[in-house]
Each structure stands twice: as structure tokens, then as C-alpha cells.
């Protein structure tokens, strides 16, 4: 009976009920859309940053991360690569050797980060092979091939073009002089200035020969389909690394600033969300409180007829819950539709393209909906409205039947 009473009461003032639930709906739709948008941008930011060069995880000699010098290298035991490949979600295992050296053309000389790569798997862990603007990428890892690909700015600075020779000068692993003469076969342009300005790639075995590395490498780069599923495999990856006395670094260790950046973004948007929940809670509190106050006479009658205050309170609770359910359902439907729509078409920022590409973001943002972003906002709204309903309910317990009936 109380349920029915509450339901009917809700529709005695349809305009108020609709306005109140619209307020809930609007806020919850916003609180679904925004976190989903943030979630989507974080995922794509992480993916895009890692796909530039780092991969989803790396195996290194312990200490190499802090001290990336040529001596901190590792030899690869026969079973290591197959052990890594056997781990679920690990699709790509690619080896790299890295050193800094001086590149010189006929006219100019510049410092560059020289990376020895496995030509076939490099394309799966770095964007360099897919962004060759002139010429081609390396074809083999062979030490007989004197090939090099250069970043576009580096090539421009060196005034070197495809087909020309460049000389490499650096220090080998054993401290000896590392010198080589290489032919530019390709020039890449990634849009990331640090890469285009500084990087050059050569075949891994050529690198090992030139820099007297024997069979050593500096890093084993792992990659998979997407970062969220890959992350589940970090535990077995670490276990394998420990088995061979090596260090495994996940994406947060490879890009420490990125996670902090995400946390910063979350914590700056939280006050906004809290303020929005407060505003909508206050306005709902007002509406429930008034619906109680304006019915003082009616409640007086009910009380004198023998209805217990707890039953009236129950009625108010149910009325509020009806309001909340109504608003939240609308809000979730609206938020879901809006988010899914933009998840397909994307939100495009024409003007901000540059800023996004600098941080490894594409020029469109795609919100990503999951159970958490779908339900967290609406449930907080619902809960805080429920909590605030305590105030009007307390008033009911304070009512005396006779004065209440006489109230205007």
C-alpha cells in the first residue's frame, strides 16, 4: 500500500518529478560521459606513447634503465626468447642494441642515437618502420648489410639523402673505437621531434659487429594486442626475468611521467565532479524537503488516522527512490547512448592537433565505456541524494498530529 501511495504521490506534481529526475539524468549522463572520455584518452595516450618506441614491456640488464650505457648489456640464453613467447598475450619479442654515436656526412656531423634492430619484428614495436617517407626500411639483420635509416630532421641536418654514405663514429662495448660506413636506405618522419631529430636504426648484427658487442643486446622489447590484456601477463614476464637474473619493466616504469600525468588529470577533474554532485544533491534535497513541508496538513491527517511516522518516512524514502531510479535510468540511457555514439565517430579537435601529436595522441578522442565508468557516477549521485533525504525524514518524526493538521 505504501508503495502505491508513494507512486501516486510522485505524480501529483508531475512537473516537479520530471524536473527533479531530469536534473539527476543530466548530471549522471555527464558523469558517465566525462570519465569515459578520460578513460578513453588515457588508454589511447598510453597505447600511442608505448607504440612509438618502448613497447608494452622491456627486459633489460638490471640497472640499465638508470644507467643506459653500452656496457650494461645482456646475452640472450637460448631458452629466454621461447620462454617469453610462450607467455599468453605476448605476441612480439624484439631485440635491440642502443648506443650514442657521431654521424658524419660529407658536409656535416651530428650526434645520434643509433639503434640496432631486428628488421622484421621492429615494425611491431615501433612506429619508425611504418613512417618511412623516402626509400625503405631495413630488410635484414645481417652484419653484411651496410644500411641505415635516419630521422627526417637528422637527415636534413646532415644534408644526407637516400643512397648517400654516412660515417659512424663511437665507442665500442670494450672501449675500442667503433667506426663504420653506412648507406642511407630510408628516411623516417614520425612527427615526434625527439625521434626525428636524434634517431637512426641499423641492422642488429651490424650493430653488434661495429660496437664489438659479441651477441649482446640492451633490451628485449615485448608487445601484444592491447595494453590492458597485456598487463595481465606482467607477473609471468617478471618470473621469467627473475629466472634469468634480468629486470622486467612494465609501461609505468618505462614511462613514469605518464601515470603521474593521468593521476594529475583525474585529481584535477575530481573537484568538478564533486561540485556537480553537490549541486544536484542540494536541488533534490530542496525538492524533497518541500514536498514534505507542503504536505504537513496531509501528514497530520495521516498521523491522526493512526499511520505511524515510520510508515510515512518509508513513503518518503520510496518516493525519493522512485525519483532517483527514474532519473538514473534516464541518465544512464542518455549517457550510454552519448558515449557509445562518440566512441564510434570520435571527438575531433582540429585546432589542437599539434598538442596531441606531441604527446602521442591521435587528433580525435574516443570515449571508452566500461562498467566502472558507466555506474560509478550515477551510484554516487543516487547515494548522496539518499543520504540527504535524511533531513526531510527527520522532520516527519518531529510532527505532532494536531498542530500539523492546522498548519497552512
Amino acid at each position: 500500500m505504501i508503495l502505491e501511495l508513494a507512486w501516486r504521490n510522485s505524480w501529483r506534481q508531475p512537473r516537479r518529478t520530471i524536473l527533479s529526475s531530469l536534473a539527476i539524468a543530466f548530471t549522471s549522463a555527464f558523469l558517465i560521459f566525462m570519465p569515459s572520455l578520460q578513460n578513453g584518452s588515457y588508454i589511447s595516450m598510453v597505447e600511442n606513447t608505448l607504440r612509438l618506441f618502448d613497447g608494452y614491456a622491456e627486459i633489460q640488464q638490471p640497472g640499465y634503465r638508470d644507467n643506459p650505457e653500452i656496457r650494461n648489456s645482456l646475452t640472450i640464453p637460448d631458452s629466454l626468447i621461447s620462454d617469453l613467447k610462450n607467455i599468453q598475450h605476448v605476441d612480439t619479442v624484439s631485440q635491440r642494441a642502443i648506443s650514442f654515436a657521431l654521424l658524419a656526412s660529407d658536409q656535416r656531423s651530428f650526434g645520434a642515437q643509433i639503434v640496432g634492430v631486428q628488421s622484421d619484428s621492429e615494425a611491431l614495436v615501433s612506429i619508425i618502420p611504418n613512417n618511412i617517407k623516402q626509400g625503405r626500411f631495413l630488410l635484414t639483420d645481417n652484419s653484411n648489410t651496410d644500411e641505415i635509416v635516419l630521422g627526417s630532421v637528422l637527415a636534413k641536418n646532415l644534408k644526407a639523402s637516400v643512397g648517400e654514405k654516412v660515417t659512424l663514429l663511437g665507442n665500442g662495448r670494450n672501449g675500442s673505437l667503433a667506426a663504420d660506413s653506412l648507406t642511407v636506405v630510408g628516411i623516417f618522419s614520425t612527427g615526434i621531434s625527439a625521434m626525428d631529430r636524434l634517431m637512426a636504426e641499423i641492422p642488429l648484427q651490424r650493430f653488434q659487429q661495429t660496437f664489438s658487442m659479441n651477441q649482446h643486446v640492451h633490451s628485449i622489447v615485448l608487445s601484444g594486442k592491447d595494453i590492458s590484456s597485456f598487463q595481465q601477463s606482467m607477473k609471468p614476464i617478471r618470473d621469467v626475468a627473475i629466472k634469468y637474473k634480468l629486470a622486467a619493466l612494465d609501461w609505468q616504469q618505462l614511462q613514469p611521467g605518464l601515470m603521474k600525468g593521468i593521476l594529475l588529470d583525474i585529481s584535477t577533474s575530481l573537484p568538478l565532479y564533486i561540485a556537480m554532485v553537490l549541486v544536484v544533491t542540494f536541488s533534490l534535497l530542496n525538492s524533497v524537503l518541500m514536498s514534505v513541508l507542503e504536505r504537513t496538513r496531509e501528514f497530520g491527517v495521516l498521523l491522526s488516522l493512526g499511520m505511524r511516522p515510520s510508515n510515512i518516512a518509508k513513503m518518503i524514502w520510496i518516493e525519493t527512490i522512485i525519483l532517483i531510479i527514474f532519473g538514473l535510468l534516464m541518465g544512464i540511457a542518455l549517457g550510454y547512448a552519448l558515449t557509445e555514439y562518440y566512441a564510434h565517430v570520435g571527438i575531433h579537435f582540429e585546432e589542437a592537433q599539434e598538442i596531441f601529436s606531441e604527446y602521442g595522441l591521435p587528433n580525435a578522442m574516443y570515449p571508452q565505456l566500461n562498467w566502472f565508468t558507466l555506474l560509478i557516477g550515477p551510484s554516487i549521485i543516487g547515494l548522496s541524494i539518499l543520504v540527504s533525504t535524511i533531513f526531510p525524514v527527520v522532520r516527519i518524526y518531529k510532527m505532532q498530529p494536531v498542530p500539523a493538521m492546522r498548519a497552512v
Partner: protein
Amino acid sequence: MEKLKLFISLSWRNLWRNYRRTLITFSSIGVGVWAMIVLASLMEAWAMSTFNASINTLTGHAQIHAEKYLQDPNIEYRIDMPDERQTDLLNSDTIKAWSVRVRVPAIVQSERDNAPLMLVGINPQAENNLSFIPNSITKGAYFNDVKSPGILLGKKLAKRLRTDLNKRVVILSQGPNGDIKERGFRVNGIYEVEQEDTESLYAFISIKNAQSMLKIDSDISEISFVLHDLNELDNFLARYKELNKLKNIKQDIKSWAELEPLTLALLDMTSGTIALLTVIMFILIAFGLVNTLLMAVYERTREFGLLQALGMKPTYILYMILIESTFLMGIGVIVGTLLSLSTIVYFSNGLDLGALAEGSTMFGAGRIMYPEINWIQSSIIAIFVWVMGIITSLYPAWRASREVPVETINKAY
């Protein structure tokens, strides 16, 4: 006039007949306005921090280079020291600080490792008020004059090279004829800045040393300057360009906005986001406001009927409700604004981002935010919410004025 006074006192009293409702509505409006203004000022502080960091990192408010230098920062592209008339212009009151620099790509070698960097020859005194360098030396000493020996390295780079104060490093760089110039330097000082990338990007030597090492006489790579008032920038650049045109000097003169398009994009995006959030917040407030006023109108239908029966014109009732909403919004907006201003003042000595600072520096901003009261922006937000609130209350007010006297007086609850 008499009537207006009457309306005002009527509305004011109406507001306090149900003080609980009024207070809750105030709180809702107040919290909304407070959150908007505080957030807007924090976002601005963040954007300003990015702006200052980028200005301080050698950019200045504008720079002058040889043509082609920006596309290819090479020793080949040099300019002469500013001549007499250019110097006069740079010494004018508009300019707060200016300096000339030699800036070329180089390689640094320590006993243990080597790394690429930008070698910058500076005039130590002129960098005061212009760039971060003089105030960032945390170990060792800064240079005394344009001929001081030694080199200043960033902390991160020094660590990577495993070199330290008073140790020697060798700098290799290309001379004007394509030959490699080489010179040893003693590490004179270590500098630390918030952006770690900067620490491994730049090494500083005195300008005379740079010029003699590279054998470029008194040639320079760039002139950088900051103004007292940024609004004067376009004007000043125009004067400089005119002077150059007169003397037929071809130089590449660029403002910070052209040198750092990312910073400009960030500033633009911030103001866009603030506007969008203000509108969304207002919509939320409006729902509550309309609801409150509608209810206030409904429960008083008998009263309005009576007032009309006593001869009050329907339009007067409309005015009365509008004045009530003006008060309701106004007090909420004023309280919210005052609260937000005091919040901003409270944080104006610096809001330390603490553990999150690394994320902030990654995006090019600092670790401590200094929110400032932006009177124009705060007033725009406050007045926007206020005026839109009054416009929104037209609907409940219009409904109230349309009640038919006899029906409403007889209306039972």
C-alpha cells in the same frame, strides 16, 4: 519608484518565509559558482605555469634569428651583433631584459660517456630576468662575465655522464666551415629545473668562449628578450621589423606564440574548457532553480489569487517573482564568488602538487601552481550565472502571473 520599493520589500520577505528552502537554494548556487571560479583559476594557473616555463626556457617573449636557423639550427645561420639603432631599440623602456646568445648543436664527452645537447653561449649578466639560468644553479657557481671559463651542465645530464663539479668534459661541435671544433671545459656549476628534459638538453658556456671556440668572431645565433607588458609585443616587433627593413637587414623575428605553438594551443584550449564547464554547471544550477521557484509559485497560488483580487496587476506578480529570483540568485552568486575568492587567496602563495608534480612537469608546467584572482573572468562567470538564472525564472514567474483570481482563492490543498 514607490512600487519598486514595495516589490523589493515584498520579495525580500517572501524569500525568508521559507528560510530552509532559501538556504538550500543558496547553497546549491553557491557551491556551483564557487567550484566554477576556483576551477577556472586553477586551470588558468596551470596554463600560466606552462606559459612561464616555456618563456623561461630560453624562449623569452620573442626571438630574432638568421633566416633558416629555426628550421635548421646550425652554425651556418648566424646574425651580427645588434647595431647601434637596434641596440637603442632593445634598450628602450618597453624591454625588461634582452640578451644575445650563440646556440648550436654539440656533443659532450665525459670520461665515461657522451651525449648530444644544445651548446648555448650566454652573456651571464644579461640573462637575469630573462631566463631560468642565473637562478637555477644548485651546485658550484654561475658565470661572472662574458669571458668566464667553464661550463654549466644540467643535473640529469651530469648524472648520466657521471661527471661532477670541477671535472672536465669535452665539447665537440661543428665550426662554420664544416670542420669539427673541440675544446675541454671544467664543470663550473650544475643547474636544476623542474622540466628534466631541459636538464639534459642544454649546456651553457660564456658567449666569448663560444665565439672563440667556434671561430665566429662576434657573430651570434639569436637575440631573445622579454617585455614589461606583453601587450606591447606586436607593437614592438613591428618597430623592429621596420628598422630592419629600413637598413635592408633580413632577419627572422618571431613571437613566443610562433616559437611555441603548443603553449598557445594549450592556453586557447584552457579558456575553451572553462567556458564549456561554466555552461554545464549553469544547466545543473538552473534545474534546481526552476524547480525551487516553480514550487514556491505553486504553493502560493492562493496568495497570488488574493493579491490579484485585491487589485494587483498580473505583470506586478511577474515582477515580484523575478525580483525574488534576482535576490535568490544574487545572494547565492555573491556568497559563492566571495568563497571562491578567499579560496584562491588562500592558495595564492602556491599550491604544491606534491606527488603529482611529475605528471605536471611532463606536460610542461611547474610543480607548484600559483592561482590568481582573475577579476574579469570571475565577474563573467558570476554575472553569467546570475543573468541566466533570472532569465530561467521567467517561466515560473509567467506561470504565477497567469493564475485566475477566483479559482485560485478557492483552490483547496
